């Protein structure tokens, strides 16, 4: 922003606003990734738990001669 008579305050404000906007967008996306991973972990843990239960039932049934 070279100017013989200085720079306008409006230009400075616009520059600052754009930089803050970029910082916020980047932060927003990183937090979004974290939330998605959190949800994925919860789903994976639930699926893992249900698979463990299912496998335990299979193990008991394969062992039970009366089944």
């Amino acid at each position, binding site marked *: 922003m070279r100017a013989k008579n200085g*720079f306008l305050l409006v230009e400075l404000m616009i520059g600052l606003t754009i930089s803050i906007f970029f910082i916020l967008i980047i932060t927003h996306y990183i937090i979004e990734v*974290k939330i998605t991973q959190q949800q994925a972990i919860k789903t994976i843990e639930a699926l893992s738990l249900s698979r463990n239960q299912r496998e335990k039932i299979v193990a008991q049934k*394969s062992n039970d001669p009366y089944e």
Partner: protein
Amino acid sequence: MIPMNNKNGFSLISFLLYLMLFSMVAFFTAHIITSLLLPTLSATRHYKSLIALHIASDLFVRDIRIMRNKPHSWKVMALHELIWHIDDDNYDVGWHYRNNRLERTEGLYSQGWKQRKASVVATGINQGTFTIESHNNHIIGIEMTLIPAVDPKKTIKCYVATQKQEK
């Protein structure tokens, strides 16, 4: 920084205003980085390593399910190591925990690996154990327990039956 070249100079008020706004932006950026970005990035790495361990347990379950659908025999059953033989295809598969890593090995085993292809399935594990569940001298299930280094409280347990369900 924005160059402020000016042949006629600039007023002290403009300079102070600019300095104040720049300081505010710098402070705001530093605040966001320290309070939001750094903890979020560390949490992301944490979740990533937990997901990797769950993927490793999925692979283990897949291997045992392949094994239980074919005639097989056990070669090694230890706390940190499992090796079994697939009779049809005449090859051995082994899983072991060593040096904070979970490894899968495939090849020919006879008192040691004669021929092998090893791959690291997961890293960053504090403790990895295999627990055999048997009934009347008959192995019915295996439980793999992984304690992640990033969060020892989040123990990952994965149970799998070694005999397929009779229909």
